[in-house]
Every structure is written in C-alpha cells, then in structure tokens.
C-alpha cells in the first residue's frame, strides 16, 4: 500500500476553501430595505453585484443537487439527469470520432504519401471551432426529420474530437521501433498479423493519449452543441437558466461540467498509464 501524503489531500482542500472564501467576498448579496413610504425593496450589494455567492448558489440550486436524478418537468430535472443526457450523446459522438480517427491515424502514420497529401488539410480543419461546424451539421442533416438535431450534434462532436486521436495515432505509428518490425519480418508475420500483434500494441500508449485528449474536446463541444440545437442536456439547461435570469443555476452548471470533465480525464489517464506502464 502506498503511503498517502497528507499534504496531497489537505492542500487541495485548503485551496478549495480559499477559493470559496474569495468567491463569497467578491459576490453580491441581496438586501431588503424598507423605504420611507413603507414599501419594501430588494437591492443587490457587493463588489460584483450579479455574481451569486457560494451560499446563495447552494440555497437556490439545492433542489437540482439533492435529487440529482429527479424529473419534474422537461426543463426541470436533477443536475445529474441532465448530465447523463449529455454524456450519452458525448459517448456516441466520441465513439464515432475514435472509429474514424484511429484508422485515419494509422494510414497517416504508415504512408508518407498519404501523410503529405492530407496533413495540411487536417491542420486546417483541426482548429475550427465547434460553433462553426454546428450550423453545417444542421444543414447536412436537415432532412433527417426527428433525429436531425441528434445527427447534427454527433457530427459536430465527432468532427471536433477526432483530431487528437488522428494525430497521436499517426505519431505513435511512426514511432514504432524498427526492431519490432524487423522481428515481424524475421518471423514472416503476415500483414494482418504484423498489424494486430506488433503495430497496434506498440501504438496503444500513443492512441490512448489521443483518446484522452479527444474525450476532453468532446465534452467541451457538448455544451456549445446543446445551446445551439436545444437538445436536452446540461448545456441546454445552462442556456435556459441564463434566459430565465437564474444565474445561480449557471454557476451550478459550470461546476458540474468542470467536475465531470475532470473525472473523465482522470479515468482516461488511468487507462493511459496502464498502457504506458507496459511499454
């Protein structure tokens, strides 16, 4: 059993506490005051008047948190239920990204010609924002009827999240030591055998680095996609609450999106480290 350093647990907690404190101090608070004519007026005071503080956020949004899977109405559901909707669509789009991206990376890594042909295009498409892909996706799948929104969302997630997988896989394939390939040649392994028994295992650590980065991007994209398409999910919830002027919910959504993204990244990096450990 590895010894747990108390500092590695305590220090993040101290950091969280300090951040909450600073947040509370700069955020605004609602004060009721009685006017001379007997009416009561509510005003916001504080440094950043419209920013809800942590206490206020907790009070206003606790119904979403304490019943995270509740479904009261279409637009009034527990926060984890919204998150779940988003995760499902992210998983689908991410799967498409990996299924397309991995072979594409292998082709780029294996063939210098292919790489010279398509590398510039990839470099141009890679930095395009999801906000730019989304309308194209909507147009492309406009005739798909009921599932048009879903297809547009999947298209956007896949096309944005694919690139780290493509590029890392390509780098990994190019980095396969010549020694391993010599072994394959001496053993007279067939092309398929060389691919599955030598090349894919040797590339796995790079592929998983790509997969981790792709997952991060897929999760980033989902919020934008839901805002634009109106699909039910955490990004859509955030947008609705903004339109309703409920700023506490926005804060809750930001925290949730961050925590989920962090957990996904951690889970992937555990997987990644397992494969790195072998090589």
């Amino acid at each position, binding site marked *: 059993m590895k010894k747990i350093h108390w500092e590695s647990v305590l220090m993040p907690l101290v950091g969280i506490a300090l951040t909450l404190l600073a947040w509370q101090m700069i955020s605004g608070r609602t004060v009721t005051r009685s006017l001379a004519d007997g009416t009561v007026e509510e005003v916001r005071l504080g440094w950043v008047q419209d920013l809800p503080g942590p206490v206020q956020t907790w009070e206003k949004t606790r119904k979403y948190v304490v019943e995270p899977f509740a479904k009261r109405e279409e637009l009034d559901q527990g926060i984890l239920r919204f998150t779940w909707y988003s995760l499902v669509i992210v998983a689908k789009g991410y799967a498409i990204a990996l299924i397309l991206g991995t072979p594409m990376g292998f082709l780029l890594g294996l063939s*210098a010609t292919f*790489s*010279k042909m398509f*590398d*510039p295009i990839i470099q141009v498409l890679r930095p395009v924002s999801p906000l730019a892909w989304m309308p194209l996706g909507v147009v492309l799948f406009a005739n798909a009827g009921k599932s048009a929104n879903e297809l547009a969302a999947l298209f956007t997630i896949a096309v944005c999240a694919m690139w780290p997988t493509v590029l890392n896989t390509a780098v990994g394939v190019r980095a396969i030591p010549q*020694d*391993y390939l*010599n*072994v394959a*040649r*001496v*053993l*007279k*392994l067939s092309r398929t*055998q060389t691919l599955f*028994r*030598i090349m894919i*295992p*040797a590339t*796995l650590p790079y592929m998983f680095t790509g997969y981790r980065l792709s997952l991060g991007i897929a999760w980033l994209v989902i919020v934008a996609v839901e805002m634009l398409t109106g699909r039910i999910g955490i990004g859509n919830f955030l947008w609705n609450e903004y339109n309703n002027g409920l700023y506490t919910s926005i804060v809750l959504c930001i925290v949730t999106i961050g925590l989920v993204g962090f957990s996904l990244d951690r889970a992937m990096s555990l997987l990644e480290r397992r494969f790195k450990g*072998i*090589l």
Partner: protein
Amino acid sequence: MSFLVLDRVSKGFGPPEARREVLRGVDLSVEQGEIVAIVGYSGAGKSTLLHLVSGLLGPDTGSVRLDGRTIEGPGPDRGVVFQNYSLLPWLTVAENIRLAVDSVFPGWTEAQRAEQVDRHIHLVNLTPARDRRPGELSGGMRQRVSVARALAMDPRILLLDEPLGALDALTRGTLQDEISRICRASGKTVVLITNDPDEGILMADRIIPLSAGPGATLGPSFPVVLDPTRDRRALNHDPRFKALRAEVVAWLMGPGARPAVSVSRKLILPDLEPEDLEIPRSLIGGRRRPRRRSEERRETVDLNP
C-alpha cells in the same frame, strides 16, 4: 560447397551522389555446424553483414547463399538474436517465444507448441521468469529470452548480432559461457558478430576480422585451436590463446585499420540569442529547425592521424 556462402558482396547506403559504401567485396564461407565469429571495429559494417545474411537487407552486388539457395528476404530458417534484444515489451517471456513458435510452426498442435516454448525457456534457465515481461528482466535475462526465441524457431543457422554488447563485463562473461554452451549443444551453424576479440576466441571455432570501413572487407580466417571446454580462468594463461588474440588484434590494427582520411562536415553551433519564433517553419512534415545560416561552420577532422 559450404553451407553459407557470401560471394563478392558489396553494400552501400545513401543516395547515388553521396553513397557510402559499407562493405566491399566480402567473401565468406561457413560450414554446417561451425561457429564463426566476425570481429571488427564499431561502425565497420558488422551488423550490415549480418543483416545481409538474415535477409533484412539485400546486397548491392554479389550474392548470399544458404545451402545453395540465394537469400531473397528474411525468414525463420535464419534465427536472429538482435543487438538490443528486440523483445516485444507487451508480451511475457513465454508469449514472446510463443509468437515465434506460432508463426513458424502453424501446423503444430497446441500441446506441441506449448512444449516447444517451455523447453526453450528451460534451456536458457528462465523457467521462473516465464510469465514476466521484458521490462521486469535484467539485460542478461532479456538476451537469454532473445536466444531462446531464435532457437525455438528451429532455424538452420543462428545469427548473433553483438548479443552481449549492452551488458556489463561480469554478466557478459557468464553469458558468453552460457550461450556458447547452448549453441554447441544445439549443433547449429552460428555466425557471431562481436567487437571483442576475446569473446570471439572464447565462443567460436573460427574468428574472422572485418577491416574498418568505409568499404570494409573480411580478413584472413583464424582457426581457434583450443580445448572445447575453454575454462576462462585457464584460458587467460594459455599461450595459444594469447598468440591468437595477438594475431587477430595485429591484423585489425595493421592491414585492417582505417586508412588516414580527413572528413569535412557541416556543424551547427548553438545560438546564444533566443530563437525567433516568427520565422516560418516547414509546413509539411519537415524538420522543425529554424534556419540559422549564420551558425553553420565547416570543420575538417583528421581521422586516424
């Protein structure tokens, strides 16, 4: 006719205008069951010579024949033990050997293959480590796995490419004895590449020096006339051992030495000023090194003065 024949073999690398000839007019014949050591300078082309036999490289001129047939490409009839082990790190010891057995003996039953794997792991005394991965083994153990893998393919000839080059002196000594014993017990034809004349004398029946490159060629062959047990402690005082070593070294230092040449090369000196990131870099592929022409210098070095 000999078992393995290299006939006027030449091999060079690089584009036609800047070709570097590594081997020139190499003749070699090895009899069946013989253990031949090829000793030479680092970078002389010893590994190139071995790769010509393994088929990983093809000769530019001349021919390489095994048992009368010209070698066209790599194949499992020539077991190679690579310099840096070349074990697949994601497979265990047994799986590494199993991969070779599976691809060489597709017609065998499961039991036959498992037996072949186990027998060869036992042969190199690694039975306790059979389920460990190469990363968990010492250099000497890895090289033993590599030898076991090559032998498990039941090759007609065993090619050892500086098998002990990366090991410390003591491990090297033990492993020399062990590999020597295994090779002799197997009765296989062996070509051993080494940069250590002592190692060659200790392990081989015949030792052939390779002259320094470029355009390296093989020298005369020196038969090793020592008792086959070759106890290394006794050997150090054996006059025949000393005489043989002196002869081989004398050839390598004399006729086989590198001719005095001067080489002119381009140097890129480090820049003390920070790099200008505005300078565009090569768009496609290309090396990501900014052009700094001002730092290029030419330098002429005399080799072997």
